[in-house]
């Protein structure tokens, strides 16, 4: 009897692996946990984390979609970490008519924090990901670049500006080779000064549609990260595309749930 690792089984394996791990601190914000922006802080030197999440998306005129993601991060030197991520999915998904289970692409990332916030200078960081086309309909290697600035806003809030550029030189003829994006995130501890376990998040984003000639997508999101154990954080959030240009599929609402564990 041969043993085949289906996408579902692979995802479950990833899920089980991920359960005992992810970012230790509810106040340290990583993309997709639960919203799409990063803060400018890297993992601590020698820290490791496993982050696991899933999101349910309701695309317009498409079947319900379930996407999973798992990421391992390692602080390999001061102010820098490496990451490797997986993004299997099931059902309807943006940019693809296929609804069969898909292992998704595999990404290898490097994150570097240049400085902490000091005086009026924000904290700056750069994140670069190389994406290997492991997915069912993926075409060629791609990359993602993200510049990040984080700054105190008011006494306890922080704003996070993420400037993105995604590129795929092997994109299909009807797809863009490069598409930019911008995310403005805001985070603030909730429950202060009596509770110290929760951070609230909100974002406003705009990104170019994937198809050539398509308009842009304006999205919003809100979420919460809550410390649930000494080393683990639970997160959940909602995202929605509130306005889309012509020829762009709209994700009406997406529920994101995740769990992170640092070690």
């Amino acid at each position, binding site marked *: 009897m041969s043993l085949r690792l289906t996408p579902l089984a692979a995802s479950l394996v990833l899920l089980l692996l991920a359960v005992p791990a992810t970012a230790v601190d509810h106040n340290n914000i990583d993309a997709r946990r639960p919203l799409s922006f990063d803060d400018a802080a890297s993992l601590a030197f020698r820290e490791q984390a496993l982050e696991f999440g899933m999101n349910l998306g309701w695309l317009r005129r498409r079947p319900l979609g379930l996407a999973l993601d798992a990421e391992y991060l390692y602080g390999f030197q001061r102010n820098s970490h490496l990451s490797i991520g997986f993004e299997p999915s099931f059902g309807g998904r943006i940019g693809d008519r296929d609804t069969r289970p898909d292992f998704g692409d595999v990404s290898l990332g490097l994150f570097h924090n240049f400085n*902490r916030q000091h005086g009026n200078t924000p904290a700056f960081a750069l994140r670069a990901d190389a994406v290997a086309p492991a997915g069912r309909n993926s075409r060629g290697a791609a990359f993602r670049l993200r510049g990040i600035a984080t*700054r105190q806003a008011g006494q306890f809030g922080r*704003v996070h500006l993420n400037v993105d550029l995604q590129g795929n030189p092997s994109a299909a003829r009807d797809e863009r080779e490069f598409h930019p994006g911008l995310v403005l995130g805001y985070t603030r501890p909730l429950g202060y000064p009596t509770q110290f376990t929760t951070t609230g998040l909100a974002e406003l984003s705009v990104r170019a549609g994937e198809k050539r000639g398509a308009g*842009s997508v304006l999205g919003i999101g809100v979420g919460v990260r809550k410390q649930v154990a000494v080393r683990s954080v639970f997160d959940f959030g909602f995202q929605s595309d509130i306005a889309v240009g012509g020829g762009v599929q709209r994700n009406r609402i997406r529920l994101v749930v995740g769990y992170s564990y640092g070690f």
Partner: protein
Amino acid sequence: MERTTRTIAALALVLSCGVRVSYGEAADLPGGPPPPAAVAGSAARPLPPVPGNLPAWIRNTKTNHIFYRRGRYNFDTYNIGPLAKDLNAVAVGHAMAYEDLVTGKAAGLETRTFARIDRVLKTPPRFMPDEAAISPTFARKYGVLEQVFDWTHILHAQTVDVLASTQLTEAEKDREIERLWKYYFETVPYAVTPLPLNMAYLYSQPYSQAFRKQYPKVNGLFWGYHWLQGTMYDALYRVPLDWQKRVYEVVGERYHKTELYKTDRPFMPMFAEVSPRFASRFPHIANAFDNLHMLHDMVNDILATEWMTQHQRAEQIQRAIWLVSAEAHRDEKPGVSSADRAHDHRHFVGMPGMGMMQGMTPELMWMPEMGWMSMSDCHHCSMPLWEGPDAWRNPTISAGGWAMRVRCALCARDMSAETKGRALLQIPTEDPYRMLVVLSDEQGNLTGSMPGAVFVEMEGSHTGCDEWSRAFTSRAALDAYVKANPRLAGAKALGFDDWAKREGQKPDTYVQPRGSVENPYQPQDAPRK
């Protein structure tokens, strides 16, 4: 594409305006508003110059977060839940006070801030909070100071993790604590020096005592935290987990009811005053923690000094960091005096883990309510304590917020009987890794941690009490000791209950040491004749 680009450009413009507004709000913060109105008579004083050759790290703008040294004991402090929570609250207390000091809320420090902190101390958080999230303005203004604090707090946390571990033997704990020190000391350039520093010098800067004078209640909290952070070491060292929990019931009660709210301490609690066993075994760590706590005091005073400009504050904080840094004292040795008091590394005789204090000499130390004492002699019979590699043989008694080393089991028991309130006795046995822990209740009833413990007590002159009064883990160990010491031939083996009921004679060797003045913290005291 054009439409997309326009949309993104428009949004970017809107967002950047928003960001600029946010930046504008925060731009007022550097330096912060001035502290409350100057107290009468507080005039500007000359400040010591900042050394011109400070290393680059003292001005670094990196984040530099470093993770715990990995070990199977990580986060085991949570084995003693109430202690872990109290330590979490300490982090909140520090952060709230600092944030209010630098954001123009200093006028409410003794009222609103105190109440806010006190509420957290009474209902402590389940998990260690991110201090930078509670004091973001302070972290932004004094990032390097925050790095020094954080890094040494990690050493605090990890050493307690080791002590609370049930997976390490006592010998492994000793070795791991040394490895943690090495990790702490070698990983970053901003470790705090392990050498004893002259506390009298560090606490006699032009700005010294500003904080305690203006904010006595919040200063009391800070010193209460430092009392806990010192006391917990002897409370846990060589004590099994079930008894660590029982011991912490006593320590925690004292902390919450008394130590947090004391406003009459003449000086911050020193590590060796509350954990002499650990300070004797790991003097470098005790010194580093005292030096860190002194850095806290210096920073508090600088931030509370109204006649200093923001620039002067930033400079003096840099200088304070430098004064306690390991790099400033590279190649210097413990025990060595210097004409430059910043490099005076003398310590008390018999206690390498404690630097010189105001008006004291290496031979004589002074403590509130206890008076003058020698740290190399028994506090009950005045005979010399065990020293060097044998220092583990000294029992200790902790009561009333202090801890004293004594020479024998009898001295520990009888001294506890003379003490009001609950007491903790820690009595070594023949096995360096097995300590008899004894709790004394309000009525003086003793409860021991080792059901099979037996004692020899052939009372005579205290010149030999370290021989004739000892505790053993078993009858066999006692018999072997008696056999090897013919002078004890015929000694009766006492069970714990019999031993606990006894009361010895007043020691024939006791001498009350006398210092040059009654109280070195009251300079108006006339010198003794």
